[in-house]
């Protein structure tokens, strides 16, 4: 396996941390785009050299930057994700920011997907230089109704996220929309269907209304792509296809901690193993570590039970939030885990979450972490 790079996207720029073989020492490279809001920084696992950054600033509109030399030089997309111009007399949508980047299937080199805020799905076939709308979703009247408007979704806008490509089938896609539900396409985005059976929503609302469903993060298991896990606004779920039924495996979490959070990470070779980072979803939703005591929880049996993993993490007075893109894993023989906090710290574990140590601190608020395996 090649050297690891930890790709850090923050509210005020991007950083690349280069790890040694033991994943103990990390050499920092950055900042890149200091002052720019970077929502996602992703290395193409197919060529292992193309790096895409989803960027905007407080003033300027959104764009995509590309690098093929690990950030030594960057070029801007010729046509960043943008909605079609609306007919005269109608109010059209505009992309506020690209939130999510997903490289396409290995059989489709150069294909990437982008999820935006407000909700939109875009596809590039040239490595991120030019982006086109996935019209089967963006222009579908039913979906436009479910997508909601600026008043819906997260505090800084509704997000289309968790664009997942089935490793067995380039045309089989999943997406999450907050708020807007989980959806599936089996024809590369031409048509879509909701996948929300079994998911709970906020009490008092009708689960038949798709826009009330709020997935926070979806993950497909590389070891068994028929299995997906989901961290939702209302719990942790698992689904085993071809069933269309999600099961709330988060019921097995300790009641005092609950099963609310943003991220979820799956094991690269064991579909029974997944990790979550719970947050406080009580009262006014502080979205901080419950009790100020941050901990990862791991299941080794598909969510039937969960174990607390907090060795090395602060024992008290640590009021972190870990956003949905800010926790990831590597694919080493003993997988490592990485989490980034909104307070600008990165914590890592080289033993599947058993022990944690701080990798970096004093960064801007961290939006996303990804691992890249370099060529």
């Amino acid at each position, binding site marked *: 396996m090649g050297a690891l790079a930890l790709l850090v996207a923050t509210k005020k720029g991007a950083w690349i941390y280069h790890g040694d073989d033991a994943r103990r020492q990390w050499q920092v490279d950055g900042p890149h785009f200091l002052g720019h809001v970077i929502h996602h920084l992703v290395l193409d696992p197919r060529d292992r050299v193309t790096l895409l950054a989803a960027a905007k600033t*407080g003033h300027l509109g959104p764009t995509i930057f590309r690098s093929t030399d690990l950030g030594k030089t960057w070029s801007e*997309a010729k046509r960043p994700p943008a909605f079609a111009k609306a007919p005269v007399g109608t109010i059209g949508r505009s992309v506020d920011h690209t939130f999510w980047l997903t490289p396409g299937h290995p059989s489709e080199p150069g294909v990437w997907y982008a999820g935006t805020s407000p909700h939109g799905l875009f596809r590039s076939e040239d490595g991120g230089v030019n982006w086109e709308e996935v019209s089967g979703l963006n222009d579908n009247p039913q979906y436009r109704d479910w997508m909601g408007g600026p008043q819906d979704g997260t505090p800084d806008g509704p997000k289309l996220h968790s664009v997942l490509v089935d490793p067995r089938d380039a045309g089989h896609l999943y997406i999450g929309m907050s708020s807007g539900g989980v959806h599936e396409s089996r024809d590369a985005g031409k048509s879509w269907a909701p996948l929300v059976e079994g998911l709970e929503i906020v009490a008092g609302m009708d689960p038949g209304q798709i826009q009330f469903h709020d997935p926070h993060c979806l993950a497909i298991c590389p070891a068994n792509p028929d299995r997906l896990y989901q961290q939702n606004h209302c719990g942790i779920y698992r689904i085993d296809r071809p069933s269309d039924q999600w099961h709330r495996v988060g019921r097995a979490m300790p009641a005092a901690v609950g099963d609310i959070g943003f991220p979820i990470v799956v094991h690269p070779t064991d579909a029974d193993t997944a990790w979550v980072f719970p947050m406080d979803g009580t009262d006014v939703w502080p979205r901080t570590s419950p009790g100020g005591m941050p901990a990862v929880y791991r299941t080794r049996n598909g969510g039937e039970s969960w174990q607390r993993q907090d060795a090395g993490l602060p024992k008290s007075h640590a009021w972190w939030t870990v956003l949905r893109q800010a926790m990831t894993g590597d694919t080493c023989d003993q997988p490592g885990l990485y989490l980034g906090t909104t307070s600008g710290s990165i914590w890592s574990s080289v033993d599947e979450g058993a022990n944690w140590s701080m990798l970096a601190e004093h960064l801007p608020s961290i939006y996303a972490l990804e691992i890249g395996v370099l060529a």
Partner: protein
Amino acid sequence: MNVLIPDVLKSYTGTAQVVAEAGTVGELFEWLDEHYPGIRFRVIDEQDRFRRHMRCFVNGIQTFDLGAILSPHDDVVILQALSGG
């Protein structure tokens, strides 16, 4: 006409001032995009609206109208409005 470029867009132009040729504000941004690819979309969205924190002044008068007529001796200022935190 003279066009004053704000700091946030100097990565495109390399200078604080450019001399452009255009008959309208919309044509001016097309001209800028031809010479400095990508700059227009950072200022004007896909619905031809100025982005929330970007402003354009012609001879000291703010305009949001891409159809506004420009004369060769006009002074145009593109400005970043307050956006911080």
